[in-house]
């Protein structure tokens, strides 16, 4: 996903979600630039920021 292997991306998402007040079951949509959409709204955060 977005150029990361599955293990790396899962680690990133595992930290991204609680930092954004999301729960594990919350479904998000990732855009190519790393922006993240939840419930039709863009979150003020970027998944690339959580890369190791």
């Amino acid at each position, binding site marked *: 996903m977005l150029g990361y292997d*599955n293990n790396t991306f*899962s680690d990133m998402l*595992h*930290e991204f979600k*609680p930092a954004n*007040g999301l729960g594990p079951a919350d479904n998000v949509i990732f855009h190519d630039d790393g922006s993240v959409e939840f419930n039709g709204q863009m979150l003020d*955060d970027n998944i690339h*920021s959580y*890369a190791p």
Partner: protein
Amino acid sequence: MHPDQRPAAVPHARAHATLIISGDSVSPEFWTAYFGMEPDRQISKGQPFLLPSGKLSSRPGKLGLWAVESKAAVRSDQLTPHLQYLRRRLGLPRGELRDLARTQGAKLALWCYWMNDTGDRVPDVPDDIRVMVETMGGTVEIDEYR
């Protein structure tokens, strides 16, 4: 270093657990003092915070967050050893924790990272730990990946 002397690469963890206390009014400093230990992760609302890369975030924290992880201390593909480690390390259960969290509007959650790469792995959360967390007003959250 001779190639044969290099430490073997540590395989990616397929399970680990993190106690997370979070919320708009959560002060990491309060929980650090309460538990008497530095967290593995913390966010103060409105302040930059440390990212996994070790860099400071460019955006301010959206909420307060205090988290202690099992990942570095426990190597197991099952959750139980991770959960038992957190229980010991944090001295759980703690009778007053429920009210303290409620007073601060804090959410207490045991986040369980679970890699279900084979598609047939079932997360193991012992009943006594689930009951303990729920008694403290918290939840056990399975964060599953494939």
